[in-house]
């Protein structure tokens, strides 16, 4: 179960999980803002966002205000998935705790 949660899941990567957790209460954020918060390069962030977009967890939109900007928006599927992922992690930790106590 642990291997499944960490290795095979799109949210198993700490950067992608951080992106989703930052997005969840905010709904949408600018690419630049995410880059500053996570302290990663544009290329690195882009590759993680593409992965999340492929899974249907986020939508990447280009908008033109005073200058072109990229907005990342969480989807309903993404919100549901990050919630169930956190619950699965919590359950796993509780089980590990019980094993540790025994």
């Amino acid at each position, binding site marked *: 179960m642990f291997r499944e949660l960490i290795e095979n899941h799109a949210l198993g990567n700490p950067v992608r999980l951080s992106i989703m*957790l930052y997005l*969840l*209460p*905010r*709904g949408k954020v600018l690419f630049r803002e995410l880059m500053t918060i996570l302290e990663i390069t544009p290329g690195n962030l882009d590759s993680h966002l593409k992965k999340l977009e492929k899974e249907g967890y986020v939508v990447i939109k280009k908008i033109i205000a005073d200058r072109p900007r990229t907005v990342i928006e*969480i989807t*309903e599927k993404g*919100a*549901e998935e*990050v*919630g*169930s992922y*956190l*619950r699965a*992690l*919590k359950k796993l*930790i*509780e089980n*590990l*705790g019980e094993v*540790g106590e025994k």
Partner: protein
Amino acid sequence: MDQFILMGENISEFKKTLERIEEKLISAGKIYSAIQFQIWLVAMLLYYIVIAPLDTVPWQLTMAYWVSAFAIFSYSSMKIWKRMSNLFRSYGKDIREKPSFGIGIFLSWTSGAVLGWGFIPGVLLKMGVNSAHAIGFLSFISISVFGMFITFLYLAESLEREMIPAFLVPALGILTVLIAAPEDMVYAGFVVGFGFSLTVLAYLYNAFRALG
């Protein structure tokens, strides 16, 4: 042995991190609810500022103001609601998939409006137009917010204790509205404002409390 201790420490640290995340999400939900009530307060208080210099308030002004206020409120509510429903979804409660939830909210406000702006003032007209409207206004708010409270409780399985002042204070205000005659409509506005302020305060307090 050391390995087991290290594992135990890591687990408890990880558990704490997960708990902090959960607390932040709960806190965000409470802040969004506070914003919803605060928008109502802003709209209501601005109305009093707009009508203050006028000797008589033309019904066209009241109508235009509240139609615009409802439009702005509905738009901002939709935006906030989208974020709140994502938070609810992350808790494992998919309230958007329950059409009865939306119907519940809609019925709360429509029944509040019909009773508060139509039926109740009509029945109480003998008391004077101002008093009848003041009681109608307080009834509209208390019925509508109580309806929302019940909808959240039964259809979203969420006991929103913070909402209680927003319907209880206006309901209690009905009993005391006549002491403020002839300014009973202004009094009713302050009663609703006070109730909503308590609700905003409760949501903010609980948001910070959730953060620990």
